[in-house]
């Protein structure tokens, strides 16, 4: 009855739209329609898309290289931008040693302003990893910069939108670069887990019997080990000396090794439900093979649920990478991820003195919340009554 009510709602909605005959709309179209009605989920999706675009164009958006050290700007706070004169500009600043605290402090010198320029040339990078270029969205005009007494060279006027870290690295550049890892590692990890879980779950649910038994016991076994320690142990088993790319791949694998069990279990449940439905029986009665039933009935019906379960699993995987990196077991410098960045913000003192180091955490929260909105919306769209 519940599904009838749902369909009636759809029909009603369509009657209002009067755009298309709902009778000819496939389940996917109906789901998309239902999803679009959930404002929060759509918002989540848009924000996430935005974040991925930012990550993809990290080189273009960052004015400086993410691993560029700058001893003149250790722990520089986010640069203030003034709009005096109608154009955005920044002040110069100089490093002064506070002799009482034995710490560097920064003195702003706003006697001269350095305008921010857009579409400037800077360091060389590959756009989307493919096209070498040196164009950047913005930079600071260096015209008239004071000469550094120590080196005799003109001092570089820098714009740190999100401040700088303990080595003077630009946080914005690091965050953008880190987003590439943090936003994808969970996604790909869950992707691998999804493929693994769907195949095994479908086999287990459809054929039952011995296969199912072995599968069930294996899943139970893996889920009897607490996740974070298991992740940590797996990650710790990775040798510390390896290339960034290899480590990235292996961390993905580690994430998926733990995450597939939940997926497989859910898919199994769904497939078991579908198997007993009469449309599968009708195909069997017509002489259809198992392959046919799985390919034309089980999988297409399970796919939407697989997508939902996967979407709901992504936040967990992203959080896991962040936590592992934070603990020093996941990604390691020179690679940058949000977790790696947050490693610098482990103590209260740092957080209180240099709050901008916590910006990656804000992004983690935004990302995870958006993924939850997305997953929730997908689930409601697929199965409005469960």
């Amino acid at each position, binding site marked *: 009855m519940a599904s009838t009510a749902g369909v*009636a709602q759809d029909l009603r909605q369509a*009657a*209002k739209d009067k755009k298309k005959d709902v009778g000819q709309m496939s389940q996917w179209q109906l789901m998309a329609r239902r999803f679009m009605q959930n404002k929060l989920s759509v918002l989540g999706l848009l924000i996430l898309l935005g974040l991925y675009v930012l990550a993809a164009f990290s080189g273009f958006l960052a004015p400086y290289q993410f691993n560029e050290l700058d001893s003149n700007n250790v722990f520089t706070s986010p640069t203030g931008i003034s709009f005096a004169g109608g154009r955005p500009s920044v002040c110069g600043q100089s490093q002064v040693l506070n002799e009482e605290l034995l710490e560097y402090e920064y003195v702003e010198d706003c006697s001269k302003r350095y305008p921010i320029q857009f579409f400037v040339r800077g360091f060389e990078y590959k756009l989307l990893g493919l096209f070498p270029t040196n164009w950047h969205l913005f930079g600071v005009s260096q015209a008239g910069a004071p000469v550094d007494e120590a080196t005799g060279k003109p001092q570089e006027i820098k714009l740190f939108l999100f401040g700088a870290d303990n080595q003077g690295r630009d946080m914005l550049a690091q965050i953008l670069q880190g987003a590439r890892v943090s936003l994808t590692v969970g996604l790909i990890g869950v992707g691998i887990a999804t493929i693994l879980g769907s195949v095994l779950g479908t086999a287990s649910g459809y054929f039952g019997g011995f296969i199912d038994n072995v599968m069930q016991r294996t899943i139970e076994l893996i889920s009897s080990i607490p996740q974070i320690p298991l992740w940590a142990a797996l990650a710790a088993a990775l040798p510390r000396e390896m290339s960034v790319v290899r480590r990235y791949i292996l961390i993905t694998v580690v994430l998926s090794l733990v995450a597939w069990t939940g997926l497989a279990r859910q898919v199994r449940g769904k497939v078991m439900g579908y198997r007993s439905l009469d449309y599968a029986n009708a195909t069997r009665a017509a002489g259809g093979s198992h392959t046919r039933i799985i390919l034309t009935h089980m999988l297409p019906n399970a796919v939407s649920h697989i997508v939902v379960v996967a979407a709901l699993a992504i936040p967990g995987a992203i959080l896991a990478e962040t936590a592992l990196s934070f603990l020093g077991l996941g990604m390691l410098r020179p690679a940058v991820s949000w977790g790696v960045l947050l490693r610098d913000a482990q103590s209260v003192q740092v957080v209180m003195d240099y709050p901008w180091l916590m910006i990656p955490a804000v992004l983690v929260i935004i990302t995870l919340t958006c993924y939850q909105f997305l997953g929730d919306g997908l689930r409601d769209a697929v199965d409005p009554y469960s």
Partner: protein
Amino acid sequence: MADPVANTGSTATTPDGGVDNLIQVENLEVRFYTQVGVVRALNGVDFNIPRGQVLGVVGESGSGKSITGLSIMQLVPRPGRVEGGRILYKDKPDSKTINILDLGRQSDEMRAIRGDDIGMIFQEPMTSLNPVFKVGAQIQEAILLHQTPNKQEAWDRAVDILDKVGMPNARRVANSYPHELSGGMRQRAMIAMALSCSPNLLIADEPTTALDVTTEAQILSLMRDLQSEIGTSIMFITHNMGVVAQMCDEVAVMYLGRIVERATVDDIFYDPKHPYTISLLRSIPRLGQKRGQRLEVIKGGVPDPYSTVTGCPFHPRCPSFMPGLCDTVLPIEAFIEGKTNHTVRCHLYPGCTPDSDQAVTGVSGTIPTTSKAQ
């Protein structure tokens, strides 16, 4: 609103000769405010339940018969709301009439009526009992609420009432959990619970639909016995015409949130007036009917609740459809000529077409109604 004399559809009378209706429902309107639109579940329903009688409410799915029952209990689930009308309730023939809808849904007065004055049984015996409590405890709970504060006494009464509804080994059943009982036994337990405080009215919402025929027969004869013994009025909601014929004194036929015909059970079966009632009776295969005889068909299906039908709600399926009238004008409820307790809502009959040339004016007993044609 309604002239009390108009509702003479009962044999029960008060000592002074008036009609003794336990419940009188007037112009009841219930709507459901869902995300995609308003569902008009009930559009001005009028009926009365005479004291000590069994009223059958018949209709297909979506006709609003269950919602009618829930409205009397003030238990219409969200997002439904009772939007208008009155439900007049008279505890005893000489007691004051109260409008149930005036009481707060959660008020003490309303809760005192629920379970004590009015009991209810639902369609699904498998899900009507709470799976985590013992059957006896669930009945005891109702008795403790309304009858006695003494736990032991309430328990004993619960066992008694289980015995009374024909439970073999009532003591053991009282100590069982619902999942240990069969569907028929659970429905008996539900009846026991509903009757535990000797209510004036029992609302039975399709109590046998989910049961097998032999179990259904058991439950029906049990209800009949208890009814004659306790004198409870019953509002029997069902879609099974056979059950109606066997159980009820009066019948109200519902279609899309309206009562289209009201009469005694005899008139409904032997002198039906509304085309829907007639078609319904003819479309069911009857035992003993010759094989090969085609069944009458009502074309189409019950429209989905979101759509609005202009004029008479039955007109798209009606075999006696009159273009220009049925699809534009909503018929009002009127008495069948020469009958005092048989009303119908169909343009075929005089008095049903409001203020129109075709309507035969001056027919006595036209019930004034405030429901407006949509």
